[in-house]
């Protein structure tokens, strides 16, 4: 097949670009520790509130600057977060979010962080992030889950 020499050069440059992109993404994984969520266990659809870790919802300190936040996405709130009562942690804290859904698919996002993942009934989503920057963070559902989807939100204050 005849291919123009200019096009060959162009394709070579494209290949270089793709390789550079892969290197940059590799760096984000291996030197900056950004990871994708993966399987973290499952829950039985019946009686979620009786199964660990969802038998005890809420923010718990598990060590020095270490927290665990267990929460349940449900139509239409992040149980047990109340919209007008922010969660608070000191700056530098590491929070591990553990979440699942008790009805349909939801999505968990904490604005300005890379806490961003799907919450799928039956599956446990586990994400960890260190909040170095003080400020207010929006916790929001980003997957359509019914008429009052926009009511699923809360606030985290890092002081």
């Amino acid at each position, binding site marked *: *097949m*005849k*291919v*123009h020499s200019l*096009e060959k050069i*162009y*394709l070579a440059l*494209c290949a270089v670009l*793709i390789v550079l*992109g892969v290197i940059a*993404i590799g760096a*984000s*994984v291996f030197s900056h520790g950004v*990871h*994708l*969520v*993966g*399987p973290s*266990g*499952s*829950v*039985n*659809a*019946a009686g979620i509130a009786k199964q660990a870790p969802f038998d005890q919802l809420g923010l718990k300190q598990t060590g020095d600057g270490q927290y665990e936040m267990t929460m349940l996405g449900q*139509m239409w709130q992040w149980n047990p977060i109340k*919209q007008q009562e922010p969660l608070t942690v000191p700056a530098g804290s590491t929070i591990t979010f553990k979440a699942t859904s008790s*009805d*349909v*698919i939801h*999505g968990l*996002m904490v*604005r*300005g962080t*890379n806490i*961003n*993942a*799907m*919450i*799928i*009934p*039956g*599956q*446990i989503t*586990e994400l960890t992030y260190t909040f170095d920057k003080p*400020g*207010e*963070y*929006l916790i*929001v*559902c*980003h*997957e*359509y*889950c*019914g*008429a009052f*989807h*926009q*009511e699923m*939100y809360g606030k985290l204050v890092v002081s």
Partner: protein
Amino acid sequence: MSSVPFNAELAARPRADAEILAGDTEFPAAQMWPIKGALALGLVSLAVGGLLGLLQAIDRVNINLYGFTRPVIDNYYQGLTLHGVLLALVMTFTFANGFLSLTTMKGFQRPLASTFLAQGVFWVGTIGVVLAGFAMLTNQANVLYTMYAPMSAHFLFYFGAVLLVASTWLVSLNQLLTLRAWRKEHQGERIPLLAYASIVTFLMWDLASIGIAVEALAQLLPMSAGLINSVNPQLTRTLFWFTGHAIVYFWLLPAYVSWYCLFPRQVGGKIYSDGLTRFVFILFLLFSVPTGLHHQYTDPGVPVWLKTAHFFSTLAIAVPSLITAFTMMAMLEMGGRHNGGKGFLGWIPKLNWGDPSVTAQLLAMLTFILGGITGIVNASYTVNEVVHNTAFIPGHFHITVGTAVTLTIMGVCFWLVPYLTGKALWSRQIALLSVWLYTIGVLTFSRGQMWGGIDGIPRRSEMGAARYARDYIAGMDWTLSNQLTAIGGVVMTIGGGLFLLTMIMTLFNSQRAHVEIPVAETVIGPRESWKGLDSIGKWTGLGFLLILLAYGPTLFILVRNGGSATPIPMVAMGYQPHVPPGMDNILVIVYMLVVAAAFGGFWKLLQRNAS
């Protein structure tokens, strides 16, 4: 308003046969009306879907018009479901059905093999749209076009969607039968490029649609009808995205057929290389589906190593579009220089910017550069965590399917509607204005959406009603990005409205025109391209193998241990199925028999037409 024939050069050509009325095409009327019908359905979808888009866009600056659209459109999410389904599924599918049926005939210079199938496409697709439309308009299917289980809509919604997909299979079947018939008459010849590209597009989609077909038939339909009351949401989501990435190429490739095979003629250039064009379509056939997990980077139930594998196959699918960028530029430069363009960039103003069909597609290509780049952002593994499910995503796909594809559809309509009706395009100026406005609008809109998305605006969320959007988080202000989205949305709607006005006025135009399908010639012709590219059956088989490799392990893992989770009860969204107690097992058997009979009928049809 003066009307200008679409292509002066072609229109000026003397007609060979003065007896043929203007507007008569070279193909049988019995196969042409389904094409016209499909196109009409697509344009109506664009009109309705576009208006709902406007409502969504201005909701972002607190203008809520749903009070006026009640009781037809009750709320934001009902409108959004209709917007997504009508534009991303109905408009694109009907256009692909109609346009690529026509290009198949044109490529082969013969009618389609089966008139029965050609008309069946129209009826099956239209009935599907009517049934799904009923469910959506009566507020019984507010599940958005992604229809993620365990949300459950009215069963007619899924049934309608299945019929719409089935209509595309009928097109594909008819194309293959036509190819067979043509091969008998032209032994040893290369498949004409135009027909080749049209057929491979549908073969790619045949492979891609397996996922959604299995999802709909094995889970969603029985769930919504009350035959089963639990599903595996991680599995259904995976089946959806099996189809969901490749579907973007089913939107895009009809536009590529125009860009590669027709457009060069419209700008006075030629198809750069026959072989490379075939190669590009084959790459799409091979790599469109085995990349779908890049939509599930953030899914908890999918093992990370599988996500990594799909990230790498996603890089492969960037290649054909990168080749396309080069080929298009080369072709345009050739055209511009042929028209007298001199100097380094002097060929650009020499392109036929006065021809609305050309301008629409040039703007489509330019916008698609941005679309491609933002697509690479989405696909980039860890970077995806920044943009996943934020407004960045609608920002991205309104410049891909919402512009590259939609503007190409508009551009094609500027010659296609005159070709089909024999009426001259109503107004060249308004047509030009419409595509420029649409482009300016969508660039503003997407700028707002992408910016807002990076700043944390979630997608698919009614901003006007979201109390967190204002004065909730210290230092968070989305006003400006939402305003850009709203203003851009208004300008897009005006542009789209002028386009539809042009189409309607063209239908009523008293001035006639004779327009031909602009089929381009090649610089490097078929004789110099590899013959093996024409063995499309083998390539499809290879594509299927790649899918098995990419999806076999995923589906095995998800099915074997149910994603290690128990079945999840369905959640009815506006429609609760009623199955008399004790009847469900019987109904499941009846349902399975009906599905088997439908496929059996399809098979019979295939055999009868093949003999």
